[in-house]
């Protein structure tokens, strides 16, 4: 009956895990899955909002990029003037402006083709006064002084006008900002709702395992250690829910893109804008990560507060 006659060492494979695999606080099973489902549903909405915002912002950037080095001079026909001379003069003024790379006079045919979508093909427009256009290609550096050019045109070619798309661009910027702001508010709201659900679930879990928590503290666990156990668990649930929700949102977006591709092959404009970019998926993945972070932080705080109250 002394230490010298110990039986042979037991089979240590039976010890059970101590490190990663050990659940010091038992799992809740069902309750955990309910929370994952709630977080997944919320993450789906947040990821859609975030993805849409990224799509809109990047499409807007593409459009902006495409048209920011274009401008057009329009010369309205005036029976009292020599249209061809006016066109040539306007083009010359443009070419003299530093920062304008090229000024190309669109032929009458070009102009008529541009009107086709509105007036229909096969119409003989030769008798009609069709406005003529000069396409300008702008350099990024030096930036052309377009307002000065506009004034010169007003003086030399009274029937002309310069359109640098700035009105359209500023409206695009406003709409983009609105959509992005809306999406950010939606993401914040949804994360807030997830945080509420997680806080509720954490308080349930810590109350449900009160006896375990008490034993842990009595055998020397710091409050921070206990809080960390719960934070880890809920961060994992948050990540899982977030991934499920984001993946569903990504799948929905891809499906939408595929549908629209079927309709219009090699689509442009709105259709092209629907094709998801890597940034869109990055934003959706960020939602999952944010869910995990929010879950961990909320659980940690909730448990710490519980332990403080229940000394």
């Amino acid at each position, binding site marked *: *009956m002394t*230490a010298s006659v*110990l*039986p042979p*060492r*037991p*089979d*240590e494979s*039976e*010890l*059970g895990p*101590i*490190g990663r695999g*050990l*659940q*010091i606080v*038992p799992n809740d099973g069902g309750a955990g899955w309910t929370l994952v489902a709630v977080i997944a549903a919320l993450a789906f909405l947040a990821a859609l909002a975030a993805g849409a915002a990224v799509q809109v912002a990047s499409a807007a950037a593409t459009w902006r990029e495409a048209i920011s080095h274009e401008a057009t001079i329009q010369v309205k026909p005036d029976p009292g003037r020599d249209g061809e001379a006016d066109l040539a003069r306007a083009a010359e003024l443009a070419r003299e402006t530093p920062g304008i790379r090229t000024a190309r006079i669109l032929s009458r045919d070009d102009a008529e083709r541009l009107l086709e979508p509105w007036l229909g093909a096969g119409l003989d427009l030769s008798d009609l006064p069709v406005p003529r256009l000069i396409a300008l290609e702008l350099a990024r550096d030096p930036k052309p002084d377009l307002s000065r050019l506009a004034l010169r045109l007003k003086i030399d070619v009274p029937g002309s006008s310069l359109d640098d798309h700035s009105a359209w661009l500023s409206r695009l910027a406003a709409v983009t900002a609105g959509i992005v702001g809306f999406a950010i508010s939606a993401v914040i709201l949804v994360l807030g709702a997830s945080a509420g659900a997680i806080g509720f679930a954490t308080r349930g879990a810590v109350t449900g395992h009160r*006896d*375990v928590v*008490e*034993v*842990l*503290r*009595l*055998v*020397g*666990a*710091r*409050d*921070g*250690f206990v809080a960390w156990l719960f934070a880890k668990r809920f961060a994992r649930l948050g990540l899982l829910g977030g991934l499920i929700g984001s993946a569903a949102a990504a799948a929905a977006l891809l499906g939408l893109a595929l549908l629209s591709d079927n309709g219009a092959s090699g689509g442009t404009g709105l259709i092209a804008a629907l094709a998801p970019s890597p940034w869109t998926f990055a934003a959706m993945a960020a939602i999952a990560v944010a869910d995990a972070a929010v879950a961990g932080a909320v659980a940690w705080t909730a448990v710490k507060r519980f332990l*403080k109250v229940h*000394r």
Partner: protein
Amino acid sequence: MNWDEATTAPSVVRLDGVGFRYGTGPEILSEVSLDLPPRSFHFLSGPSGAGKTTLIRLILLSVRPTSGELRLFGETTADLAGDRLTQFRRRMGVVFQDFRLLDHLTTYQNVALPLLVQGYEEATFRGEVVELLQWVGLGDRIGAMPPTLSGGEKQRAAIARALIARPELILADEPTGNVDPALARRLLHLFVELNRLGTSVILATHDVALMDQVEAGRLILLDGRLYHDP
């Protein structure tokens, strides 16, 4: 008492006029005073319901005195909270009367728990835990879950958990209540041995026969009062 000794080695547990009641209930302990020097061994006895478990919970800082002062290891314990509270608890090992093993952990994991929650790596304590389990006669039950253990086995697992972190003070609440007299004697000698190695022990029991086996101080709880038997 020699002045030198008093300053270098403060009392492990010191109560001055401690009173306690659960909520608004009757006073369970009143005017309890005691002063246990380091390396001492004390039995805490009294009839069932006398307040032995309650006194142990007070020392463990699991409940707070309603009146009077409690000092541990020479320090006051008033208004303790958070990590300071944990620091005190890490210097004590407790065997609960109802064991309080975690049912979802193996015996090995339960016994390793105090080290685990202090952040030790398994590699540093694995051999020690297995050895202690063998020593209390649970070498063949290391992978068993507490619900499958007998009362005596649970008791020994609970004792092993209280000892594993080498506490300065052991609080054992009826640690021989569920075992046959032979094993009770063996477990008692385990505590005596630990005490010889320098650990202070408070062992609550209502078993007078057990107390007669060891020369030790006796604290007796009766009607809320604490009496010292030499």
